[in-house]
């Protein structure tokens, strides 16, 4: 810790101007002293002997001349065992622990260690004295919930080191020195189970970054089949308010087939996080048999919490994600919402009196968004294992209009786009991902040919629908009308999904393949109806059978029975066709 200090000479909102006389670092953390409270702040601009600092708390009560103590370190997070299952604020303060100490409200200036010092972890070393190690090498393991947590040599130790001491197997807390290493200049360094890493610097301690290829299954049909996401890929969900962004993120966080899920609730409603917070410990993860919370980390900097910490929260989340990726895991980071993060940047930029870009967002908005999504990726680690970090961010465009800076900058850098539409959510067609406007560059779990055929029907169905609005149903040929009914059928039974139903909410890849094949058969079938109302009647019946089918567990006998009913109905009408 350095003992550099400065004095406040200006306050405007959460921005303070500090006069200092020694040397300071860009992004250095300082503490503004206000009575007995110390308010964490970060240097964001330096000009002469003045530092502009954003305060991560309310600045109420600060005065001109108040002291600022500099820490000599950049804004960092603690990386080590004990992160899984935690609920942190944007600066990695554990919220449950804060609640135990300070009660219902977030006390200003309260800071708690991110990793508990009280718990002892059973450490098993895997190196011995005299071994050569470098940053990113594993020196031992501790069990953490669902898997073995490797203990790394800190990633920023880039030299080659000789192990001079390694503790024997036993139970220790994270503060215990478990190993000592010497570099070539014979300087000895202590290693603990955790180390600090600055959040704004990506962790790159891996061999190679690869192109994402395997799909990350979310169990939402429209995503997995039509607009898939990939392990190590990126995607965004822009949509107006009320279109179901957050519900979609919640469903994904629950059912996605990832090893670790990080939820970054960034500037959104506190209530939404609470649902996750209270429900996840109760839900069993079918993949591990343990509670869903054990694979989840929540970074929670909701809208009424200080805005500067919101800016930091997405970086905190990305850093934690990269850390678990280093262990060869598939990590999914869900950021809700990146627009709030962009707005935090805008507020900051405004207080710095920078020249504003479009809609007053700073000129560097685009590059910051790109840098953030670039932290995702599939990597081959130094030991040959693969790890991935997938980032999905929601975007809340002003007025639901995608022609705005945050959406546009995001679209440039992501691999899949799930555009939510007000039109679909108004018609209660959930998830309201627009099937004609959305896209994905990744591989689907279903056959490409079938998908392109189905999309074709959707496009044509939409054309017919548009036409019908002008010429009416009577002006539409029966053939066109059947195409329209087919596209509606596909929409109703496959694209739409009831996320609140236990069975329909999560559709496994196998189930999706079975159902999609059946849907495909129907889309390709040539039916001959005597008039439009017979056609409508048939598709109504078929839809009813399919919707009921969607609600039946795949492992029940009824599932097959229902399928037979569907086959029977189709045959009825096809045989009709033959006899004509």
């Amino acid at each position, binding site marked *: 810790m350095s003992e550099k200090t400065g004095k406040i*000479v*200006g*306050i405007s909102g959460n921005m303070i101007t500090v006069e200092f006389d020694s040397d300071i670092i860009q992004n250095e953390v300082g503490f503004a002293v206000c009575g007995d409270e110390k308010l964490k702040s970060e240097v964001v601009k330096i000009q002469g002997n003045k530092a502009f600092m954003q305060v991560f708390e309310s*600045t*109420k*009560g*600060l*005065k*001109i*001349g108040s002291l600022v103590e500099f820490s000599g370190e950049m804004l960092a997070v603690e990386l080590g065992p004990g992160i899984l299952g935690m*609920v942190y604020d944007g600066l990695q303060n554990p919220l*449950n622990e*804060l*609640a135990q100490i*300070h*009660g*219902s*409200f*977030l006390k*200003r200036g309260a800071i708690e260690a991110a990793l508990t010092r009280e718990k002892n972890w059973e450490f098993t070393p895997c190196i011995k004295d005299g071994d050569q190690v470098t940053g990113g090498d594993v020196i031992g393991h501790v069990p953490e919930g669902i898997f073995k947590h490797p203990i790394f040599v800190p990633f920023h130790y880039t030299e080659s080191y000789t192990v001079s001491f390694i503790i024997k197997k036993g139970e220790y807390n994270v503060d215990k020195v478990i190993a000592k290493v010497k570099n070539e200049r014979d300087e000895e360094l202590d290693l603990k189970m955790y180390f600090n890493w600055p959040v704004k610097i990506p962790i790159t301690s891996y061999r190679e970054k690869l192109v994402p290829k395997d799909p990350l299954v979310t169990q939402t049909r429209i995503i997995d089949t039509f607009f898939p996401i990939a392990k190590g890929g990126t995607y965004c969900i822009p949509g107006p*308010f*009320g279109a179901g962004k957050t519900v979609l993120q919640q469903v994904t966080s629950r059912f996605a087939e990832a090893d670790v899920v990080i939820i970054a609730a960034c*500037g959104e*409603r*506190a*209530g939404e996080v*609470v*649902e996750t*917070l209270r429900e996840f410990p109760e839900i069993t993860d079918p993949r591990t048999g343990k509670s869903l919370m054990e694979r989840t980390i929540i970074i*929670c900097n*909701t*809208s*009424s*919490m200080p805005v500067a910490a919101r800016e930091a929260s997405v970086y905190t989340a990305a850093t934690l994600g990269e850390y678990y990726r280093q262990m060869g895991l598939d990590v999914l980071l869900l950021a809700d*919402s990146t627009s709030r993060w962009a*707005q935090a940047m*805008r*507020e900051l930029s*405004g207080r710095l009196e920078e020249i*504003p870009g479009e*809609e*007053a*967002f700073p000129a560097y908005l685009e590059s910051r968004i790109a840098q953030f999504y670039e932290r995702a990726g599939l990597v081959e680690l130094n030991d040959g294992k693969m790890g991935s970090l997938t980032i999905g961010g929601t975007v*809340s465009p*002003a*007025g639901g*209009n995608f022609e705005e800076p945050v959406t546009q900058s995001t679209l440039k850098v992501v691999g899949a786009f799930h555009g939510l539409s007000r039109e679909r959510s108004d*018609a*209660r067609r959930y998830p309201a991902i627009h099937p004609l406007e959305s896209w994905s560059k990744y591989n689907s779990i279903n056959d490409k040919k079938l998908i392109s055929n189905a999309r074709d029907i959707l496009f044509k169905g939409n054309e017919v629908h548009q036409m019908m*609005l002008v010429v009416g*149903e*009577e002006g539409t040929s029966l053939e066109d009308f059947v195409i329209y009914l087919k596209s509606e059928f596909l929409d*109703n039974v496959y694209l739409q999904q009831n996320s*609140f139903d236990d069975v329909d909410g999560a559709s496994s890849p196998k189930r999706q393949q079975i159902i999609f094949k059946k849907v495909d058969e129907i889309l390709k079938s040539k039916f001959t109806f005597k008039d439009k*109302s017979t056609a*409508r009647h048939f598709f109504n*019946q078929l*839809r*009813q059978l399919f*919707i009921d089918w969607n609600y039946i567990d795949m492992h029940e006998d009824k599932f097959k029975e229902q399928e037979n009913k569907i086959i029977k109905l189709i045959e009825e009408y096809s045989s009709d066709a033959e006899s004509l």
Partner: protein
Amino acid sequence: MQKVYNKILSITGNVITVKAQNVAYEDLAEITTSRGKSLAQVIKLENDLVSLQVFSGSQGIATNDEIRFLGNPMRVTFSENMLGRIFNGSGVPRDKGAHLTENLIEVAGPAVNPAKRIIPKNMIRTNIPMIDVFNSLVVSQKLPIFSVSGEPYNQLLARIALQAEVDMIILGGIGLKYDEYMYFKKELEEGGALSRSIIFMHTASDPIVEGLMVPDLSLAVAEKFALKGKNVLVLLTDMTNYADALKEIAITMEMVPSNRGYPGDLYSQLAARYEKAVDFEGAGSVTILAVTTMPGDDVTHPVPDNTGYITEGQFYLKNGRIEPFGSLSRLKQQVNDKTREDHRAIMDGMIQLYAQYRETEEKRAMGFRMNEWDNKLLKYGVNFEAGMMDLSVNISLEDALDLGWKIMSQCFAPEETGMKSELIKKFWPKDNN
């Protein structure tokens, strides 16, 4: 004890600047002018220059008027004695009652730790089908009514206030017309609710800065009562006026505007207020219903737009009815599975059919021939609007659900509704008369 300053360096808009030492950010000062005393709040410090926003406006302030710093931020009294009383935006009584100065509490206090929040689980019944059936209101919810001038939004607000099962009502009026203020007062009095109400009232003729404090005062008091175990309903009307006051100050302070002149932190400012809605474990709760008028009926206007992203849904009030499209209660899923098993199915199914009706109605208006299915939809639409949407309908949730089945059975065959078969078996009316 605090030094008095009497040299004002600049007066722009409602912001004045003085040279002063040892002043804390957001502290209050009292200005004595020839017109009387007014409060002002520190909004910027730069070396020894202090900028203050003057609550009563800057008209008539002389450069040599006296400024005394009070050494504390904005506070408000808190006690049971406030019930039935009416205050202005500075927390001073508007009625003829006594000045209350006991037990001062901080306004705009810290946020609730998300880890201490609980999942909302109690529905607030209003006996308005468009709310109870389709978008249930939930304890601790924050919900705006999006509307345009001329719509009966204040009437709707008053009706919900009187019918909702809550312990206390706090009404915060921002920029209200005087007759609207009188209307609320009369409704609360006649409904017998004034004795459990507290009113913070800022009318259109009051200085604009005073309106800025109304939400903070209302919510600070509500929060304290909630901690004491009361279920409090806070009504804020009209939040667009609040946002406009924020805009005015921001422009005066030469902040870079982001969208249509509103400051870049509009979202955070609104969120800090709305997020005060909370359900305390083992204590009471704060539920917020606010009115947001949309200039030009434009939901993409920055105020309704930002509000929509913050609140847990919204009610659209249009042509005197709560619109089924766009209206949304995000918390309804927490409660509508515990009412009746057909609640969710009715909610989704009827709206989907109503959406189809709207389409058909458009086609009809354009002169297309209607087929059998179209006619069914048309009949349905008319029945739905009369039975469910009319604001004068005042029936319980269960009656409304029964009515829903009845309306559908009058118009459709069961399989045309898209309802689950088992629900149809149980609820479809046996005789369709």
